[in-house]
């Protein structure tokens, strides 16, 4: 035992701000070690922020936090204790990888702690068998049920024998049986490891009874810390005590309890054998129920048990696979507008428009429902739902409880006779929940509105007239709360549900995982091992994501085809028209000279100059040639005369090319004339353009080898940037924050698969250049390959760098696209050769990898250059990757703000 065990966890003066919002307000805590400490309170009181700070996932702003004998804000200490901490963040499986199987997830976490393979396998097997996950080890994490995700999360947290286990709301949204098993498992583990400290937060007050120590929080402050018994004191339960602590008012009557009332059997909603399948997964399995007019009917079950799917089928949002749903005796029909007017629906997440004000939200819905007394109805609802104080407030800025009231107001604005509410109160504090339920009871009792509500809170279920237990797509039992408790001979609704669940499926036995690997084996691999662990995981994920995979390979191929076929600058067979006013053999010869070339294609002759102008305007011809009436005569008598060629100059490039063609053909005509007349040729000297590297001067030969320069920066950089932004968006980046992974290990590990992908991509593009566009590789492939490797290293590093500055995948995509394409086009010499750029632009070009790669690739393909000529480019390219990766590592935050 460490002597200063009492101060192993010490928090003092901690304040945390998100912009102006105070999440934590000078928190002072002293937590015992080796105990189960619970943080209680509704959503948004600062529990997650505090746990994030204690584990070091979040950066401390003010105050001090000592964890395991040192300040967590001290980088050296944080690195030292990282392997002793395990953190399971809020949101089921948020730090897990849905594209990885159960075992692959565990292997990933094991790799981060450098465990040897034999040790890893022993540990994984022990954990899987203890949690009953062993039969599912090959299932993808994304396909697990809520309870299983939670167990897997725990397994991943326990893989490295932590001294401190931090669980943020591990049981939210999990069915009561899984929840009970979870706590049993935690107890078993603590028996096995008595020194293990467990910090856990929960929104379920009833769970807090079994904790050793409680920290009750409200609005960023700690309002109580101590043993549960001390908090409970004289009150009935912890929830009442907590409520008391917050309000310090006299306890009112428990509001919202529906007065018991005889409900006439007058079925409004009927489901018969209602079934919904998604592929081979049955989400809802022949569900039957009938709900009477004015009744509050509760659906109780865990996340993902089919509650929402059932409700969507009843609103007509989702067609059923089989069975029927009747509303007012008629089958639910999505196209029936009249039926929609009878239903008010409130979906699971807050689904109003956050960027509109409270009033605008109500107004929009009133207009869509065409409510005749619109303003009066809005005023009435604002009054009744207590929204008047928030008239102009943006919905997004409202506290959760008021958002829920607004959602309800919107759902009932058209006076529906049926209300379907999908988990309307998750995360709301107890008082707001009471207010909400009071409104529901009022609607049900006074306006005879039939209410169908789903919840995973037992306390809410108790307020319903009738309840139905749902699990894994099936309804297990149905009745009034009292009936259900009585029939299961249980003490509470929760016990009744658990007993029903236990009959339905055999629970896995609860045993603590026993790992026989002696004391800690020496970690292997170190930093390289951890980086490769990330590489392995990234590779599996990309390989299983068809969209990213297609983008990586098909994307470059498609763009290559488009660019090469589309940007070709060889123009020929241009349409032209002639206004021949001379109609002489000479004028016809002139026209034949032009029309006979491959550049031009004759169209019907013109009758007037105006017609020529019109044809030019319509884009039918690119050039009009006008020969004067005396053209033939003057040519014969060697008098000077003129030909007028009007060229469509709207597209400057095209216009200039046409002018060049005409000038050349004109010269040829004059020479031919001179030869015919036996005169000296006009041509007294020959000017021979020699197109080097590309004798026939086909643009494809220049274009095709240039294109990889832009494709190999854009696509690999975007993919790499998205992979980093994705971790941040999905939340799995927390694994990087709280494990011993360093910034460079994280970045390089994630980068490696994309370097490989980009290199394969180059091989594909090179094959296209050679076989599709018939441009042979004249130079040495080896120096080319080396240069390509360095180039894709540089471009993926560039993606990493941009990802450190963007927050979402979308921002990462567009920012990377712009930031990679623009400099490449402007400064690398893709369109304008580097030698023609201004000195400033040449400077930028020399700091941009594409300039060197362009020279390298074009040089190797068309100029036939070898090692000697390519070496400077290769050397320059080799510098970019390491430098950019280092800068990215410096910019990357190793903790959340």
């Amino acid at each position, binding site marked *: 035992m460490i002597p200063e065990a009492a101060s192993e966890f010490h928090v003092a003066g901690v304040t945390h701000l998100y912009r102006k919002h105070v999440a934590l307000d000078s928190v002072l805590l002293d937590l015992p070690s080796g105990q189960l400490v619970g943080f209680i309170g509704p959503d948004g009181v600062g529990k997650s922020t505090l746990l994030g700070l204690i584990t070091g996932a979040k950066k401390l702003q003010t105050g001090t936090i000592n964890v395991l004998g040192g300040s967590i804000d001290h980088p050296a200490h944080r690195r030292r204790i990282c392997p002793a901490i395990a953190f399971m963040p809020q949101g089921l499986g948020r730090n897990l990888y849905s594209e990885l199987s159960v075992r692959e997830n565990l292997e990933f976490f094991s790799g981060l702690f450098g465990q040897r393979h034999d040790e890893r396998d022993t540990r994984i097997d022990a954990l899987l068998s203890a949690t009953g996950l062993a039969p599912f080890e090959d299932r993808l994490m994304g396909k697990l049920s809520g309870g299983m995700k939670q167990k897997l999360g725990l397994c991943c947290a326990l893989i490295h024998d932590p001294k401190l286990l931090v669980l943020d709301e591990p049981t939210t949204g999990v069915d009561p049986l899984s929840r009970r098993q979870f706590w049993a498992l935690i107890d078993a583990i603590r028996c096995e490891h008595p020194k293990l400290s467990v910090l856990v937060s929960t929104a379920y007050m009833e769970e807090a009874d079994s904790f050793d120590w409680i920290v009750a929080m409200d609005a960023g402050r700690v309002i109580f810390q101590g043993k549960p018994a001390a908090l409970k004191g004289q009150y009935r339960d912890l929830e009442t005590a907590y409520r008391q602590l917050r309000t310090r008012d006299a306890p009112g009557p428990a509001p919202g309890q529906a007065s018991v009332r005889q409900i006439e059997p007058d079925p409004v909603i009927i489901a018969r054998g209602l079934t919904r399948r998604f592929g081979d997964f049955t989400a809802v399995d022949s569900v039957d129920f009938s709900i009477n007019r004015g009744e509050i009917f509760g659906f109780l079950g865990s996340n993902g048990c089919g509650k929402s799917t059932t409700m969507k089928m009843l609103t007509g949002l989702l067609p059923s696979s089989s069975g029927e749903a009747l509303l007012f005796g008629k089958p639910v029909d999505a196209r029936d507008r009249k039926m929609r007017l009878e239903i008010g629906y409130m979906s699971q997440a807050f689904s109003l428009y956050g960027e509109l004000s409270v009033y605008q939200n109500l107004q929009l819905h009133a207009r869509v429902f065409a409510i005749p007394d619109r303003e009066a109805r809005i005023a009435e609802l604002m009054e009744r739902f207590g929204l008047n104080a928030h008239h102009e407030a943006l919905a997004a800025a409202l506290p959760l409880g008021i958002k829920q009231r607004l959602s309800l107001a919107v759902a009932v604005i058209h006076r529906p006779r049926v209300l379907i509410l999908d988990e309307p109160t998750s995360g709301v504090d107890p008082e707001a929940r009471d207010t909400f339920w009071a409104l529901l009871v009022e609607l049900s009792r006074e306006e005879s509105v039939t209410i169908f509500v789903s919840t995973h809170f037992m306390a809410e279920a108790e307020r319903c007239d009738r309840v139905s237990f749902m699990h894994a797509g099936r309804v297990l039992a149905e009745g009034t709360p009292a009936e259900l408790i009585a029939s299961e001979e249980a003490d509470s609704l929760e016990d009744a549900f658990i007993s029903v669940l236990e009959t339905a499926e055999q629970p896995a036995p609860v045993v603590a995982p026993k790992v026989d690997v002696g004391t800690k084996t020496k970690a292997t691999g170190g930093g390289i091992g951890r980086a490769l662990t990330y590489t392995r995981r990234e590779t599996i994920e990309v390989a299983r994501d068809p969209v990213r995979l297609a983008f990586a390979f098909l994307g470059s191929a498609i763009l290559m085809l488009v660019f090469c076929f589309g940007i070709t600058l060889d*123009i020929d067979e241009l349409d032209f028209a002639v206004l021949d006013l001379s109609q002489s053999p000479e004028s016809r010869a002139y026209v034949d000279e032009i029309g006979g070339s491959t550049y031009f294609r004759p169209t019907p002759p013109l009758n007037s100059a105006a017609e020529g102008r019109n044809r030019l305007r319509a884009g039918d011809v690119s050039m009009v040639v006008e020969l004067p009436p005396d053209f033939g005569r003057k040519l014969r008598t060697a008098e000077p005369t003129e030909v007028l*060629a009007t060229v*469509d100059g709207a597209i400057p490039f095209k216009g200039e090319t046409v002018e060049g063609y005409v000038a*050349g053909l004109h010269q040829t005509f004059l020479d031919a004339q001179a030869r015919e007349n036996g005169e000296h040729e006009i041509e*007294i000297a020959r000017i021979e353009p020699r197109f080097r590297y590309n004798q026939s001067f086909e643009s494809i030969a220049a274009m095709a080898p240039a294109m990889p320069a832009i494709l190999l920066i854009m696509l690999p950089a975007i993919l790499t940037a998205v992979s980093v932004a994705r971790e941040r968006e999905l939340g799995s980046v927390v694994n990087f924050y709280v494990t011993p992974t360093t910034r460079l290990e994280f970045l390089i590990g994630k980068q490696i698969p994309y370097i490989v992908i980009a290199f394969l991509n180059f091989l594909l593009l090179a094959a296209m250049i050679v076989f599709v566009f018939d441009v042979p590789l004249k130079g040495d492939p080896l120096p080319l390959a080396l240069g390509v490797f360095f180039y894709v290293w540089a471009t993926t590093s560039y993606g990493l760098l941009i990802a450190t500055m963007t927050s979402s995948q979308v921002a990462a995509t567009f920012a990377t696209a712009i930031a990679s394409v623009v400099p490449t086009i402007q400064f690398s010499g893709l369109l304008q050769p580097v030698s023609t750029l201004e000195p400033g632009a040449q400077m930028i070009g020399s700091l941009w990898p594409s300039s060197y790669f362009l020279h390298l690739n074009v040089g190797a393909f*068309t100029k036939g250059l070898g090692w000697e000529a390519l070496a400077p480019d290769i050397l320059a390219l080799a510098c970019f990757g390491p430098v950019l990766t280092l800068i990215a590592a410096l910019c990357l935050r190793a903790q959340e703000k």
Partner: protein
Amino acid sequence: MQRLYSIFWLGLKEVMSLRRDWVMMALLVWSFTLSPVMEATGVANSVNNASIAFADEDNSPLSRALATAFFPPEFQPVVQIEPGSGPTLMDAGEFIFVVAVPPGFEKDLRARRKPEIQVLVDATAMEQAGIGANYITNILGAEIHRFAIGIDLVAPPAVDVILRSAFNPNRDTVRFAGIVALIGQIMWLTTILTGAAMIREREHGTIEHLLAMPLTPFDIAVAKIWANAAVVLVAASLSLTFVMQGSLQIEIAGSKGLFLLGTALFLFTATALGVFLATIARSMAQFALLVMLVVLPMLMLSGGETPIEGQPDWLQVGTLLLPSRHYMAASQAIVFKGAGLETVWPEFAWMALLGAALLATSLVLFRRSVAQLS
């Protein structure tokens, strides 16, 4: 009637939401102001500041006169190099053009022996090489000719060709690049705005909420289409007046109203494309990747970046199916050549046809995707 009313209000909600989304607003402003200005003034399409070297082995008055015939902005000052070093310097990318004047050039010319000047061209510099070689040939030819007339070697030519650049007498590239840039921005932004609005609705779960109201998927899509098209149309006309005509001094030859009418027709297609892509993408990130893969080729092949005549024949037929090509053609005819409706109606008809087809497809797909919401 009630349906139209709902669609109107739902669309107005889009506009109100957009006003508060400062990232999108910033993108909108940037796309219609700075971005097209940068594009219009940044890239000179024709020969510009080209690097040229002379390997002069003749060193006669004529050959020296030839070397002084090249001027900015088309050419950089001529650099004299060692004879024979041209290919190596070109390999290193120092020069695009190297003119080699053979020994005894002037003497051979006077003796009518038809001497030859070689112009080495780096053919990998696509845009500059072709036109630049023409320029150089013409400049050298004219200079030699002037010299020859001066010493009575040849008579002035009997026929002269007068080249007139219709619609763009000053060969101004800003006007062309500016309008093409504006059209590109219209296309990017419309697709992104509409698609993002669709996906946001789905990701925030508000789409279920809408569908539970007396609204059909058709109403929802149409509301998004009209609202986003209207926003882009307003932004585009402001940009046309204040940025194109105002700041870039671009002259619009035809009717501005007709151009905006064409734009409106095109927006109908581009918004439909946004809905379409949003329907097939499962998340915002996938949508972003898809937009890149679809919009970029559509723009590249529209005839704005390079002339349609440069595409292979089979592709020229294929790109007829791109609404962007018809929009580009109609816009160029109206803005540069002053064409009226009697000229551009076939392009308008194409756009309407393709837009209707795309919209119908995306509505069908959207309805199907809604049915599969889980």
